[in-house]
């Protein structure tokens, strides 16, 4: 389990990945060739992965998402130290905050 700011990245056994996602097409990369896990609307700062792999969005604009890194990778962000990830599958979760009657997404 790894955490970069408001994004949590949890290692996942391949056997635990729902079958439809094993071969599902991944998200498109951004203009710098990165997989964007979360993007700040205003600053444009992004939690992003460099290197080969796929990001599969399961539902909704904020995930949850599955990340497959066959060779491992690096999670970068303009304001947080880089995190090196081993090879494998990961579940990516965006931090949320409680609000009475609702739950809202945190953005750092």
């Amino acid at each position: 389990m790894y955490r970069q700011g408001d994004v949590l990245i949890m290692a996942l056994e391949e056997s635990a990945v729902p079958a439809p996602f094993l071969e599902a097409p991944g998200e498109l990369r951004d203009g710098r060739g990165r997989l964007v896990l979360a993007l700040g609307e205003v600053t444009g700062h992004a939690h992003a992965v460099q290197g080969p792999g796929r990001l599969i969005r399961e539902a909704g604009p904020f995930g949850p998402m599955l990340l497959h890194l066959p060779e491992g990778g690096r999670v970068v962000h303009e304001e947080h130290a880089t995190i090196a990830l081993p090879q494998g599958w990961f579940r990516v979760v965006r931090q949320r905050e409680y609000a009475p009657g609702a739950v809202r997404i945190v953005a750092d």
Partner: protein
Amino acid sequence: MQHVNSWRNVAAATGRADRAAAEAGVRRAYRTAGLAEPDRIIWAASPRAAVETVEKLTDAGRSVREEVRTRPWAEERRRMYDELGPAGWSALWSATGAQLWETTAALAERIRTGVVADLAVRPEDEGDVRLVLLDAVLGQHDAAWLAAFDGRGDRLTGLAEVARNAGWWWPYERAVVIAERPDVLHRDEAGRLDHGEGPALAYGDGFALYAWRGMPVPAAFLAELSTLTPERIRAEENAELRRVMLEYYGYDRYLTESGAEPVHRDETGILWRIALDGDEDVVMVEVVNSTPERDGTHRTYWLRVPPTTRTAKDGVAWTFGLEGAAYAPVRQT
């Protein structure tokens, strides 16, 4: 992603429309739909002003929104769905439109609500204003849909040209009303309307929306925020406004001044609780950012968690949808 980011900018664009480019887009959209170009294109300073202009239109003919916008979209969607298959279409949508959908749809709905609140002086007028709003093509706020179709055919080029250069517009057989974009747009990192020192969204004619982290607030309420005291916050009877006051004032400052004691402390942070009359308790985890700022200090931030939370770790784990026992990062930055 390049497309998504350029459409993200379209949705958030402010400032004067490029009227010539927008009008060329309108004419192109009509031609593409097999319609004669409109005789007149009338500009309005805001969606509110545009609704008033539409209500006064005479001899404009019926709305052609269906032909100009809805049908081409539906047919393009069908064409791409057939070409890409269900999984391919779903992947395309999630990589493009879905990324912008929630924030732009929420913004458009806020604008509709604001227009209705401003123009429907009597409750019985509300239906008429809403009917006019139903005829609108959302211009820049159609960015989510247009992002999905960008670069995949030229049938929506006219609509995209208007979106890149103007705000909402109303297509009728013989006339079109187009609204300018806002002059002011302030949002938080999550894309919600948010401004503590004035309108979060404002058009040239004064039509404006006030909001704090997405929550609509009255204009006069914002003016009061800079003079808040803990006593004033406690005395506020509207629970939602009191929450805004607390956020604006700062939980940490409020906690310090009200002499609050931490409820629990562990390696993940500190849990605080503020009891409020007539409302559920505010329970927060105080967390220290792992990566130091440029000056070497560590930023402290506060996250509100459910009132049933008992430990700091349970609180932090909850923010990621986990039980406390399952939360154990090996590295955090």
